[in-house]
């Protein structure tokens, strides 16, 4: 069994190699075989991730590593807790003493001498959080890549697609495996780039190009916040590493730097910044997460991103990339935990997003868009879970992240299958009753819907339940309890909406009279095995994964070995799990789901006349329009931000064109005008040139003589 280091390097390296290979050889050599390197590399990457999880699990079970023993007792480093390994491959940049020691902080004697050394190591880390993310990412990627073989089979950009997908897998795995904020930021941007490339994969299509651009620009806002957060981190902590840095010197380990999320700092919470500074850092990081994970003010790009190929929607815009924000918040939980305000803000944003997405999803007619809003909503749940700020909350959020990855990619791929069969049509008004034509898609989609709606015992039930439970517990404690109570209620309400829109989409697609759009042509049949195979595998995951982990508590225990979360668990007074509350929450949520399911069935399984009537009724107060118009976010942004900016840009353009360019042109005209005076010298006569040379010679000789 390969060691952890090898596995950790292999996981990103294989997709990178595949990406380069496909990019270089794809257009000429591989062509329709372009999937081979990508699928093979991602599958191997998945295998390596699974092995890595086993290695990590074994390391957790074993006593602390010998190296750690050596480190123990040095300086202020505490006995390490949890499991983490950092492998520094090489140093990318190093500037010693890039920042002076802050005098006002002189009393703080914890800082080692290397404070302010700006160094960026290409350092890979592995801890349970990373390992879990790696498995989720590579697993979904493998299945989606296999699915894409069928889905993209006659696309002219076949090689390009697989090159991008491999590049994305590389970036995403590096993102979760990187061990400092700079690398995190770099790969954060790189997944953004992949997202942009893949949204605009069919760049000839104006809508796709515009959607790619929009995603990129909206993400820039978030990334701006993220970058500011990183700067603030640097000025606050004097390092950007997650981990403590040790060097081996004279047979002893010497701690040279205390990482932002290093063991030492975790063991001494007073070393974290506090107050306004902590809130600022957390909120800036949260802004980045909002952008990447499509949270409330910045969620507008995700529905448009559905212009990309459906596998991309499934992989990037449902299962993996959009969860990068969740991962980041989970990773930086100690920083968030340092500020109660920040946690409340995160929770509020998540709650707003969850409700907003759910309400919007109810009235959408585009199948993929319904799923997109649902994704937004679920991401909101995850943030709500994280905002609890306890181990249970974080685990619940991450648990939901995992189950959501499975059932949402299942649903997206199912939608893709439908879309494939319908010849690219995805508007639910144009087709229906497909259950007989596409049985496998139908059944797997059903499982996905059940899982998403959170029906017992499907995966979604358990993770959603965990979030609700964590909220419930938190609400019973002090400090913003009212906010968490509100969040709890709104999530409960969201569960109803969730069930409604999920089954609305399901019924609209697979029930009712059979309708097939003319575009479908001869495609209107079940999809090939490369597409249905992943569907079935994902359905298995969506069905059993939640229950398995809930019963074994495997996921929870595994994640709890992550150092930062472990300290969180240690510190926070974990309220004793009251079985009654647990059961109460579960029953309540199940009731909610049943209500929602019933509403959907009544409205959409039959004649759908009620649905129309209800829509008219709702629209009396403009509610239907509000939902159908996606709360008019795009229009509001257009009016409030884009239009003033365009005006400003026009002003700048005028300024540039007339004043700046005028000055520059004047600067250019001056030599031209001066040169005009010398033009006669350039008369093309060789003799004249020779004479000029002689005159120059004479000047030189004159200098010699006189």
């Amino acid at each position, binding site marked *: 069994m390969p060691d952890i280091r090898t596995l950790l390097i292999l996981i990103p390296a294989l997709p990178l190699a595949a990406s380069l290979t496909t990019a270089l050889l794809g257009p000429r050599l591989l062509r329709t075989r372009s999937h081979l390197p990508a699928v093979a590399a991602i599958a191997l990457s998945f295998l390596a991730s699974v092995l890595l999880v086993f290695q990590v699990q074994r390391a957790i079970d074993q006593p602390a590593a010998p190296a750690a023993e050596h480190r123990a007792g040095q300086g202020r480093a505490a006995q390490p807790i949890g499991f983490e390994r950092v492998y520094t491959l090489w140093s990318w940049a190093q500037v010693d003493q890039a920042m002076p020691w802050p005098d006002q902080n002189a009393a703080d004697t914890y800082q080692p001498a290397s404070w302010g050394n700006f160094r960026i190591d290409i350092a890979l880390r592995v801890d349970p959080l990373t390992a879990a993310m790696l498995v989720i990412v590579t697993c979904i990627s493998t299945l989606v890549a296999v699915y894409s073989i069928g889905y993209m089979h006659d696309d002219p950009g076949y090689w390009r697609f697989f090159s991008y997908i491999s590049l994305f897998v590389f970036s995403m795995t590096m993102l979760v495996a990187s061990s400092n904020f700079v690398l995190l930021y770099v790969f954060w941007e790189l997944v953004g780039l992949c997202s942009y490339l893949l949204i605009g994969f069919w760049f000839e299509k104006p809508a796709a190009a515009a959607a790619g651009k929009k995603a990129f620009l909206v993400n820039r806002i978030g990334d701006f916040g993220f970058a500011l957060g990183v700067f603030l981190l640097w000025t606050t902590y004097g390092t950007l590493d997650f981990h403590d840095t040790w060097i081996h010197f004279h047979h002893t380990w010497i701690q040279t730097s205390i990482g932002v999320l290093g063991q030492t700092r975790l063991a001494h919470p007073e070393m974290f910044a506090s107050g306004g500074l902590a809130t600022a850092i957390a909120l800036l990081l949260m802004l980045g997460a909002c952008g990447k994970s499509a949270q409330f003010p910045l969620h507008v790009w995700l529905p448009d991103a559905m212009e990309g190929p459906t596998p991309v929607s499934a992989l990037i815009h449902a299962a993996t990339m959009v969860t990068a924000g969740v991962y980041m918040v989970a990773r930086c939980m100690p920083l968030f935990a340092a500020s109660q305000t920040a946690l409340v803000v995160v929770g509020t944003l998540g709650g707003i997003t969850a409700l907003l997405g759910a309400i919007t999803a109810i009235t959408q007619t585009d199948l993929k868009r319904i799923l997109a809003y649902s994704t937004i909503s679920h991401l909101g749940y995850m943030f709500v879970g994280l905002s609890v700020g306890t181990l249970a909350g974080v685990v619940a959020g991450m648990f939901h992240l995992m189950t959501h990855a499975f059932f949402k990619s299942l649903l997206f791929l199912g939608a893709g299958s439908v879309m494939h069969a319908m010849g690219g049509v995805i508007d639910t008004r144009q087709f229906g009753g497909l259950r007989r034509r596409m049985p496998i898609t139908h059944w797997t989609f059903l499982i996905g819907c059940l899982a998403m709606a959170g029906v017992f015992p499907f995966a979604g039930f358990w993770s959603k339940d965990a979030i609700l439970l964590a909220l419930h517990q938190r609400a019973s404690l002090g400090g913003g309890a009212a906010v968490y109570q509100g969040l709890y209620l709104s999530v409960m309400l969201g569960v109803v909406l969730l069930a409604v829109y999920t089954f609305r989409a399901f019924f609209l697609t697979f029930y009712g009279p059979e309708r097939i759009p003319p575009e479908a042509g001869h495609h209107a049949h079940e999809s090939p095995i490369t597409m249905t195979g992943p569907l079935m595998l994902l359905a298995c995951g969506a069905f059993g994964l939640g229950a398995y982990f809930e019963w074994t508590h495997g996921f929870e225990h595994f994640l709890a070995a992550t150092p930062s979360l472990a300290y969180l668990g240690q510190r926070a007074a974990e309220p004793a799990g009251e079985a009654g509350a647990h059961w109460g929450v579960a029953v309540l949520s199940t009731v909610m789901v049943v209500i929602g399911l019933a509403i959907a069935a009544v409205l959409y399984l039959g004649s759908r006349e009620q649905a129309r009537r209800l829509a008219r009724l709702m629209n009396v107060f403009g509610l239907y329009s509000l939902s159908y118009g996606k709360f008019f976010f795009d229009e509001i942004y257009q009016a409030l931000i884009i239009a003033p900016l365009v005006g400003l840009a026009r002003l700048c353009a005028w300024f540039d064109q007339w004043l700046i360019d005028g000055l520059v042109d004047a600067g250019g005209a001056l030599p031209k005008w001066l040169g005009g005076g010398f033009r006669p010298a350039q*008369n093309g006569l060789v*003799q004249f040139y020779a004479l000029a040379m002689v005159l120059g010679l004479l000047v030189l000789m004159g200098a010699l003589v006189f």
Partner: protein
Amino acid sequence: MPYEVALLNNYLLVGAALFGIGLVGFVSRRNLIVMFLSAEMMLQGVSLSLVAWGRFHNDFGGQLLVLFIIAVAACEAAVALAMITMLFRRSGKLDAAHWQTLREANQPRFHEEPLPEEFGDQPLPWPRLTPAGIQPDVPREKIDYRPKV
């Protein structure tokens, strides 16, 4: 003045004179071939000085430098004659002033003053021989016309 110094002095003066004469030729003459010869003449002037200095310093370096000058002059001759031929093929004359293509766009061409009449292109007469029979009925100009030998 000692012999060696006088020799050097005189050689340098002759070299300078050759250089100057070649210079005047290069600047004023318009025939490409004559310009080429003038350039060579300047090289000769320099060569003369080099040889004299070499002797004055009791060193072969001057002579060897002249040897290299000869080599370079040979290269120059090869390339220059090739170019002269090409230019002649294009324009039909050896006039350096004809080739003003590289002048600035708004600069006028070299203005050629018309030659006085007496230097016009007069045909060379054929040798006048005693008529041996009836004179052919051809105009006189045609008989006498003789652009080139």
